[in-house]
């Protein structure tokens, strides 16, 4: 076989057929890790769809600057103001056209939200408005009033999550997305590629990239290799093992946070000392630069540091096996059965090296005297353990999970993960419920301060979970591009930000 390969290779080399693709200098190729099931604007919050659709094909009213400190920026909305009583008024940008030639107006905004709330299709962005009823009032073509019940202090921020489609869009998933963005989808060959072409009639600045081809390869080594071989220009989500080229491989915090969810209703984790012992048993530093890439940060909150109200005073629990043993002994002395089995449930392919991380965690727990075992499951089964109602078990289960919040506000995380009503919460503490409710309703600096309090309370006072790492994403970018991937690359990949050297 080897001989055969060599022969074929030699043949190829001698006939000088380079497999590189013929393309214009301003065309780029992006290789993604999984194929898109849909190219539906209202599903753009799903990260693999978002990387193609969000702000490339379809735009939102507002846009959050997750990298810098510009906060919430106008996109299709020029400006917005709180009219009180839960109503926000948005002034829309003038002169914007959809790629099908129709003009963007307030009715499109209303229709886009109607689609999100429709029961004819299951749009992802609906979840951000779980308990909020929105009423849209078209004031004029370029003005729309949105009334939220109950009042929603972060409504303009939520507007950055809903893409705007023309009012002709049917109440079903579409395969030919029409948007206001700088690109239009010109080809979608299922299983192979998606091609976006630059629009000439875009309302904003013309981006440098004229055409983007998206390919799909699940193997990180292949993705990285494609950039190295010149077959692709950008490969998001490669692994540390294949990121061996300083010139092309970028690492950046990717807004994902890895943690172990503790069920505080189960013995023995109902005892705070046991939860503290779990935290103290882990040598977090040892993971970084080994099984996790350099640049990974220790987490003190469920959300990344760029989020509103992130509490800089918190520090990660120190690695102290002696302390862990001591805490366990004390708990045992008080009648807590610390010999109950603890099963760490982790999901295969959750993040690179998840298996190694899980195995190391279990080993660390066992070294301080826990009776921990590991159970690796695939995604559907993981969901059973992760979301309520939790299955019964002898002892307890710690669920290793990864949470993503790149939205800039903790409201997208804290209720789900810590409220007694939260679907993935292991906490049942009235004070936490109250703190979250207060913070969610607040605005401005008060909101930030209140969130800080919540972070401190769950981290230091009740030790709700084992927070581990803010993860680092790695992307490979061809040297011909002037582009630095950032935290935003996890959810979207704005072609407009890409330049050429």
């Amino acid at each position, binding site marked *: 076989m080897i001989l055969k390969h060599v022969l074929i290779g030699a043949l190829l080399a001698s006939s000088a057929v380079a497999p590189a693709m013929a393309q214009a200098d301003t065309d780029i190729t992006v290789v993604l890790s999984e194929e898109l099931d849909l190219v539906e604007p209202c599903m753009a919050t799903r990260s693999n769809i978002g990387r193609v659709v969000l702000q490339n094909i379809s735009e939102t009213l507002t846009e959050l600057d997750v990298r810098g400190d510009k906060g919430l920026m106008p996109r299709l909305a020029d400006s917005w103001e709180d009219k009180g009583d839960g109503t926000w008024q948005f002034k829309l940008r003038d002169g914007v056209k959809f790629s099908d030639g129709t003009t963007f107006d307030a009715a499109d905004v209303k229709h886009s939200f109607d689609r999100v709330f429709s029961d004819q299709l299951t749009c992802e962005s609906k979840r951000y408005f779980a308990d909020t009823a929105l009423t849209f009032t078209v004031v004029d073509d370029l003005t729309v009033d949105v009334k939220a019940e109950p009042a929603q202090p972060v409504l303009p921020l939520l507007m950055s999550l809903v893409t705007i489609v023309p009012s002709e869009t049917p109440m079903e998933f579409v395969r030919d997305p029409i948007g206001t963005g700088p690109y239009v989808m010109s080809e979608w060959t299922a299983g192979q590629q998606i091609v976006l072409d630059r629009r000439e009639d875009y309302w904003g600045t013309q981006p440098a990239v004229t055409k983007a081809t998206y390919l799909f390869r699940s193997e990180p080594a292949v993705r990285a290799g494609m950039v190295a071989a010149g077959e692709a220009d950008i490969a998001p989500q490669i692994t540390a093992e294949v990121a061996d080229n300083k010139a092309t491989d970028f690492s950046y915090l990717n807004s994902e946070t890895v943690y172990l969810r503790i069920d505080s209703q189960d013995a023995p984790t109902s005892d705070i000392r046991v939860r503290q012992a779990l935290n103290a048993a882990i040598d977090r530093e040892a993971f970084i630069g080994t*099984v996790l890439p350099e640049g990974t940060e220790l987490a003190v909150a469920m959300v990344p540091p760029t989020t509103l109200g992130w509490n800089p005073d918190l520090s990660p629990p120190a690695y102290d096996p002696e302390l862990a043993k001591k805490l366990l002994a004390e708990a045992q002395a008080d009648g807590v059965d610390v010999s109950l089995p603890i099963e760490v449930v982790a999901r295969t392919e959750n993040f690179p090296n998840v298996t190694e991380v899980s*195995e190391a965690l279990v080993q660390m727990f066992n070294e301080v005297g826990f009776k921990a075992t*590991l*159970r690796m499951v695939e995604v559907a089964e993981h969901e059973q353990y992760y979301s309520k109602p939790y299955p019964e078990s002898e002892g307890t289960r710690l669920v290793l999970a990864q949470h993503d919040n790149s939205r800039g506000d903790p409201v997208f995380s804290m209720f789900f993960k810590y409220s007694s009503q939260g679907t993935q919460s292991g906490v049942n503490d009235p004070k936490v419920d109250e703190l979250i409710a207060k913070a969610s309703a607040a605005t401005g600096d008060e909101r930030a301060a209140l969130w800080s309090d919540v972070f401190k309370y769950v981290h230091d006072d009740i030790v709700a979970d084992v927070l581990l790492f803010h993860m680092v994403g790695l992307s490979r970018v061809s040297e011909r591009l002037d582009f630095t991937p950032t935290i935003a690359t996890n959810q979207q990949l704005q072609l407009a930000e890409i330049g050429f050297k």
Partner: protein
Amino acid sequence: MTDQSLSKTPAIAEPRSTSMLSMLWRDKLAFCSAVVLLLIVLCALLGPALLGDLATSQNLRGRNSPPFDLARGWAFFLGGDSLGRPMLARLIVAARSTMMVAAGAVVAALAVGALLGLVAGYMGKTTSQVIMRLADVIMSFPSLLIAVVVLYVLGPSIPNMILVLAITRIPIYLRTTRAEVLEVRERMFVQAAVVMGASHWRIIARHILPVVAPTLVTIATLDFAFVMLAESSLSFLGIGIQPPDITWGLMVSQGRPYLTTAWWLALWPGVCIVITTLALNLLSNWMRIALDPAQRWRLEARSTKDE
């Protein structure tokens, strides 16, 4: 051409005193294979007890240590894995689960498949048709789906993995057995047994099974490799054996991300699979001859030039 059969043995053959062991010794390749397999079985039996702790002792800061370096002790001779555990010790410990999964799946599939095949081949047309349709259904049922169903409903464990792999392999044995039985039951000596009044059970057990068995054993040894690889593939797809269980297939799959940086993680377990397969193949070739009285003389003879 009746007189061309010069290899026909003289009536006075040498006494059958040659034991299996000395016959094995005559075929050097088969002998080596047997030694290798014995070693693997020993590893499987004793490995976890002797090296279980060593194989799981992690050292995050000393991960992926390169092979052929004795500085960290013999266990690291083949290098360390991605959690700093000694490869050699892990390979030895993994032998048990690997062998359990492969042998379990092959033996279970062989037993069920052969039984159904015997029934299908020996019984009437209706029974045979029902069984064959069943085999068709199993054959078109993708093993991936079986794997997901079993793992989702029953959980990922070694016995369940055996179940998954066994189900997918049953049709091979079933079809082979049936085809052979259909042929063997027409042979003269089976009819001779019928004429003597032998019961169905006796004919199956004494006359048909011994003739069919060598073919099945040969397929089983080849299947052994197939099952090890299938298990590895399922691990690759994330629906196979999961840590903390450990098999060679899983090790290859886990070593995959490190192919360019730490090749030894995936290579050694792969080599183990290849060696086991080779040894099994060579041994099964030998066994086919050794178990067949009409061919055994090839191994009893003094010269071994035709091995």
